[in-house]
């Protein structure tokens, strides 16, 4: 696949920054290899913070930041990390960036940080983050690692936003806090189930079903 260089790339280099292989690192997790709907990772936070769209958006951005930074750092120091403590090292890198994100949110978007509460801290436990460090960044150069992290984090963000869209719309009758049903003059009684984690499970289950039937993906027995 490597010799099959990108057609849109005009830079005549050995490995253009956005070669087909590199672009695939970003696009794959958005579709056929989505961390949530295909690999079924990061489900815990996908259930927890998707009751409304605004926290889901901030969470998505926070995860993108944490994943990109920790993947690049891990990739840069990958040759120095002793194998026996590599998980601990990855954890320390991820935790550092998560706490920095939390501090930045508290300093500059206090209301959102207040809203997300403990969930920002729990990015540390998001399986996607350490999963990509262990599976990709530990064995690849910084730039591909960055793209891989960005793609996976984006795949995560897109899915939680879709889930949050349906939960907020059906549960509270609003999108980003704007009462859409009231705005079009339709009295809508919010469905409380959609605001509970059970509602997220249902939406997520339907999404996984949709994604897999479109892609024809089946679990290997």
């Amino acid at each position, binding site marked *: 696949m490597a010799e099959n260089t990108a057609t849109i790339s005009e830079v005549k280099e050995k490995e253009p920054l956005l070669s087909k292989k590199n672009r695939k690192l970003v696009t794959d997790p958005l579709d056929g290899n989505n961390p949530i709907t295909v690999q079924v990772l990061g489900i815990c936070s996908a259930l*927890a*913070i998707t*009751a*409304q769209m605004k*926290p889901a958006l901030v969470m998505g951005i926070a995860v993108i930041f944490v994943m990109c930074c920790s993947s690049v750092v891990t990739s840069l120091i990958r040759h*120095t*990390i*002793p*194998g*026996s*403590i590599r998980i*601990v*090292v990855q954890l*320390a*890198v991820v*935790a*550092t960036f998560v*706490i*920095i994100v939390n*501090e*930045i949110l*508290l*300093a*500059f978007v*206090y209301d959102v940080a*207040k809203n997300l*509460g*403990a969930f920002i801290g729990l990015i540390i436990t998001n399986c996607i983050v350490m999963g990509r460090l262990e599976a990709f960044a530990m064995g690849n150069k910084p730039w591909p690692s960055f793209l891989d992290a960005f793609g996976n984090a984006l795949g995560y963000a897109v899915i939680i936003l879709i889930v949050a869209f349906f939960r907020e719309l059906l*549960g*509270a009758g609003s999108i980003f806090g704007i009462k859409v049903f009231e705005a079009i003059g339709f009295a809508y009684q919010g469905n*409380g189930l959609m*605001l*509970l984690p059970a509602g997220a499970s249902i939406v997520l289950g339907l999404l996984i079903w949709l994604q897999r039937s479109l892609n024809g993906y089946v679990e290997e027995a």
Partner: protein
Amino acid sequence: MAKKSNSYVLIYTIVLTIVCGSLLAITSEGLKPYKEANIAFDTKRNILSTVMDISGYSIRDLEALYQKTVVSTYLVNSKGEKVDKPFEQVKIDDEYRKSVEERILPVYELADPKKPGKTAYYVFPMWGFGLWDSIWGWVALEADFINIKGVVFAHKGETPGLGARIAEKDIQTRFTGKKIFDKEQLAVVQMQKGEGNDYTADAHKVDGMSGATITGQGLNKMLSEYFEAYLPFINGQKGGKVSLK
């Protein structure tokens, strides 16, 4: 040094700890003024919104409004006596960890924005525990110390869509106009179990939150506990006429 040797691992761990630790310390210290300003501003905003609608105010307008509205702030102890101590030093969450008798309680006197200078409302900050973590709030009483003008509640980690609703206007407006005294006896308004019931006839009950009974119980405990603690102060203001029972 071999990558597998114990000393390499040990030194690696130490260096990693120092690097990560310093990064976090620098971030935390560097952003401290912003964080403290946010918390102070949030408190002012919450205190103001117990007595008036502040939506649509810009940050600068709110500061000016706060200066104009807050007549005086002071501290009282559990005997109702004023405490001579810098007001900003008293943190309500630190005081919550002390026994009820030892707590120092802040009081805010607010004026009606239309009649500046004259105390019309008393705002009492409170702290408690919900289902998962801390909850807190500010309750504004009218100058008669009976009727609730308004409340603002906040929480750290209640369930979104359930207990977290205490931070929403819909829930908070249910407390407006309710009473904390029945004649001369303290009878703090309490949130009921179940939702959708009409308590407009009962000045000591508010409709509950479906699916968040424990958060509601924490809220009730916080209200009772703090009004009992503020009772000696209120008693002093009312000329010694009110009692617990």
